[in-house]
């Protein structure tokens, strides 16, 4: 029983990692950059929701929609203002940019008087609700995360696999020059991707808010989502989820059965082991240049 409860807890936590990892993978698949500001976008999304509910007095669901839209717009803006000017530079430059964006995002939120430095709660309708199923405690907040993660993953997977735009996004990440030659509007797609990933971040932020609270540093949880994405194979959407679940469950079990310290490093140990055994992750493509 205890074991099952731990696994359930691990799955719930894993879905959180997976959800954030989805955001990483999305950007990576479409632009081949790693967005170290994903956590901050998530934080901004949560603050948007908070603002919509407290300042504008929106009901919860409306606030959710508003926050997602606002963040999508923000993502577009971000792309136009800071990412686009260096489009085409090595991916690493963009990675550095995202560090900068992260700093600025966190700083700006912190600068808001009386709000930025505080921790807030988001009044979600299902707060603190639990289902008791045969002695197992199921947390509604976590169930919401699980459900949303599954749906998002399926939708994004389909987009990348079957839609022309999704394939074009991958194409421009693999060879931008060729994408231009084909008439793919690389810039527009790039905006779209950033908008999309900011929206995904907003969803993650809103789902996480009841679990981790809303505060300027809530984005740091993203540091655990990286290992999740890597374990699954960085370019794979289902991989992000599976990676998240693996890490969540390993964390949960090692937290209970192993001495202190293992829970917090479990994610990192798992990722190192994975990289030794299967360097491209579970679902990662086997990449080899043909000469």
């Amino acid at each position, binding site marked *: 029983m205890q074991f099952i409860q731990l696994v359930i807890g691990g799955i719930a936590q894993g879905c959180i990692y997976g959800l954030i990892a989805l955001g990483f993978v999305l950007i990576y698949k479409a632009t081949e950059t790693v967005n170290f500001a994903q956590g901050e976008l998530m934080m901004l999304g949560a603050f948007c929701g908070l603002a919509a509910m407290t300042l504008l007095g929106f009901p919860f669901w409306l606030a959710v929609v508003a926050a997602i839209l606002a963040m999508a717009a923000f993502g577009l803006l971000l792309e136009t203002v800071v990412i686009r000017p260096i489009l085409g530079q090595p991916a690493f430059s963009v990675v550095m940019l995202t560090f900068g964006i992260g700093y600025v995002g966190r700083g700006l939120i912190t600068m808001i008087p009386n709000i930025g430095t505080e921790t807030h709660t988001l009044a979600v309708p299902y707060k603190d609700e639990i289902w008791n199923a045969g002695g197992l405690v199921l947390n509604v907040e976590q169930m919401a995360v699980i459900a949303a993660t599954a749906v998002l993953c399926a939708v994004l997977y389909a987009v990348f696999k079957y839609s*022309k735009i999704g*394939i*074009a996004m*991958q*194409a421009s990440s*693999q*060879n931008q*020059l*060729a*994408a*231009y*030659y*084909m*008439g*793919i*509007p*690389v*810039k*527009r797609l790039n905006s779209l991707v950033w908008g999309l990933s900011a929206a995904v971040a907003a969803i993650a932020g809103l789902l996480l808010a009841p679990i981790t609270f809303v505060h300027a540093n809530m984005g740091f949880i993203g540091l655990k989502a990286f290992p999740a994405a890597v374990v699954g194979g960085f370019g794979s959407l289902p991989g992000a989820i599976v990676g998240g679940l693996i890490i969540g469950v390993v964390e949960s079990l090692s937290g209970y059965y192993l001495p202190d310290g293992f829970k917090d490093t479990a994610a990192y140990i798992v990722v190192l082991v994975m990289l030794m055994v299967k360097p491209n992750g579970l679902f990662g*493509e086997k*990449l080899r*240049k*043909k000469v």
Partner: protein
Amino acid sequence: MTTNPPPVNGLPVLKLSNVESAYGPIKAIRGVSLQVRSGDIATVLGSNGAGKTTILKTISGIIDPRKGSIEFKGANITANEPARIVQQGLVHVPEGREVFPLLSVHDNLLMGAYTRSDRDGVVRDMETVYRYFPILKDRADQDAGLLSGGQQQMLAISRAIMAAPDLILLDEPSLGLSPKFTKEIFEIVVRINRERGTTILLVEQNANMALNASDYGYVLENGRIVMEDTCARLREKDDIKEFYLGMKEAGVRGERRWKKKKTWR
């Protein structure tokens, strides 16, 4: 488009006036003016580093010219977004293949048709392409990056065909192709030109092929156009014969030692 009217050889579909492009401080082409008439095949000859690729890249908006202007179908497309230029019906088959290595061959072809919205036409052209290059059909699900060099070249050309453009810029299409396929490629190029009325601007090291297949030719040296004429006449020029067609009087080894360098300046 397959539905295009038969070729009306006449009006210039592409017109470069006084174009100058540079990489940083290095000027690669200067004062280049050329025209390609609708329905024609035009070719640019030139030795290594003459600036042929640079001309094509400037036309398709990959590099912005420092000076001069480029007109396509009467509209000024100087320094436009590459994507916009393609939408107007100008496709560039780049030097060095530039396939999408991690997409399947099929998806690569699909990307070639990105700007099109007529599904039926795309399906039809896909079949045409597969008929031209059956190996691509066999490998439709393989990652394009794993194709052999020549197969990738076929894919690059096919992608351009998939776009059903009005003008194709071809940068060394025969690079790395077997002799048999080189001929076939040129046949295909000529066929596309004849059957679909697609105008073609061709850059090719195989001058013999190029001069035979084209209507009009330009010779480029050190970034400047030094000669232009119909191909029929170019084929007869001594300089062309010697330097581009390899018909030297004496292939003596010693000659190379003091390198008779061609120059028109």
